[in-house]
């Protein structure tokens, strides 16, 4: 699990994803590529199929097409590790689960209510520190603010270190400071780890600032390329014309 910088050679290909629900076509023939060390933003209006796309890539819903991965040695790898930071973690806030419990679950097979492995505990401290959340370790998951929760989710998504990290509207509903801290952590990741990041976002300001590549979708890919290329395209203007830049 070396933390080499993104070499740009690893390639995750999303190939011809299609999803149908009854007679409705939610997505058809969606293809694009993701590279390590780069942040690719997926943008589109409400109902364009962004969340459906995320669910397809995660393998949660039945879909056509597939996701393939080529390492920088050129080897084809069938199953890749995907880290996922959900949009709004919908959970019971009164549940007696601490941040430590939550992070331990992914790292150990033994019941988290009993044995505490010191080595793993240290790893968790370190991981929490990288996103500035060490003080949250003993807190109840339900007591965290939106921004804190998303950073804890990010820590969770980074173990085991994924080849692909998916962020689904990661900071919608999070205050400005929380959102800033979250993106700081993301930038840090992009520079220091060998992972490709895909981010679904409504916030075009954030996309313009952080995304290396942008994929504009509406049921299918309308336009993809660098942020500049997409933002200046006719397709982009057509889709977002008269749509306010920041949606609720």
């Amino acid at each position, binding site marked *: 699990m070396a933390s080499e910088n993104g070499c740009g050679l690893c390639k995750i290909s999303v190939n011809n994803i299609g999803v149908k629900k009854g007679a409705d076509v939610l997505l058809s023939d969606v293809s694009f590529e993701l590279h390590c060390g780069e942040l690719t933003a997926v943008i589109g209006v409400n109902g364009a199929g962004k969340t459906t796309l995320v669910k397809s890539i995660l393998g949660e819903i039945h879909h056509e097409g597939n996701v393939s991965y080529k390492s920088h040695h050129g080897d084809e790898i069938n199953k890749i590790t995907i880290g996922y930071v959900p949009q709004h973690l919908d959970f019971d806030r009164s549940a007696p689960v601490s941040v430590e419990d939550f992070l331990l679950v992914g790292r150990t097979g*033994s019941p*988290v209510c009993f044995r505490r492995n010191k080595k793993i505990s240290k790893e968790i401290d370190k991981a929490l520190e990288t996103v500035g959340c060490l003080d949250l370790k003993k807190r*109840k998951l339900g007591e965290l603010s939106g921004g804190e929760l998303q950073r804890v989710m990010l820590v969770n998504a980074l173990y085991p270190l994924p080849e692909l990290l998916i962020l689904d509207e990661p900071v919608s509903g999070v205050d400005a400071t929380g959102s800033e801290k979250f993106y700081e952590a993301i930038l840090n990741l992009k520079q220091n780890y060998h992972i490709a990041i895909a981010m679904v976002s409504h916030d075009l300001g954030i996309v313009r600032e952080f995304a290396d590549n942008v994929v504009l979708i509406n049921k299918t890919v309308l336009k993809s390329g660098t942020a500049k290329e997409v933002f200046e395209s006719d397709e982009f203007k057509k889709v977002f014309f008269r749509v306010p830049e920041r949606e609720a």
Partner: protein
Amino acid sequence: MDVIYDTLGSLLPFAWADYKFMINALIAVVLIAPLMGILGTMAVNNKMAFFSDALGHSAFTGIALGVLLGVKNELISLIAFGVFVALVITRVKNKGNTSSDTVISVFSSTSVAVGLLILSYGGSFSKYSSYLVGDILSISKKEILCLFITLIAVVVLWVFIFNKLLIISVNRELAASRGIKTNLYENIFVAVVAVVVMLSIKWVGILLINSLLILPSASARNIAKNSRQYLVSSVVISLLCAVSGLLISFYADTSAGATIVTVSAAVFFITYLFRKK
């Protein structure tokens, strides 16, 4: 077994310890209470209080089917039908768009009605009415051994599935994204709950079984901050309530099951006042 009676008899210089049925009942509640305390934690986390209530009610049909099919040991048909109902409710709940409390309610009332219908055929329902409130004082040595084996099995299983159930209880999608087979673990869990509920129902009663499963964990949730405190306090509260309830029932000459549940409810309200927000 006689060794246990002698030891407990000499260790406990109380009037009730002279009665074998009280010693049996005590051992039984000491086995049932931790079972309920352990399973209850996840039942409450996954908002399954109503589900387990329906499961208890399905015992009517379980017994009735056993009678119809001429199964000698009612326990077999009880457990088989209980596991079946648990899996079906879970499947319908996860598949359909119908709200889950509606689904559960339909199953609950149907199985009560069908069970009563069959059992009351020919006016013989009174034979089975002991299932309604249960009778812990009538438990036998063999049945105690059976509970003991179940407790060991559940604890062993728990070690393997605890983490998975915990993450599923936080968020299903998140668990799925980590490669956890959410349906599989949920099915294992509901099946185990079904087996334990059906094994205990004869002693605790259809009307009270759910309280025993839910109340200790609900109380523990009021005061616990992490999963360790939650599990430990749930088991401890469950044990304390069960033992004290049983003893109170002896002196007050009340129904054992009802007294245990009343004590558990009192503990719930007390912890509710001290809950951590």
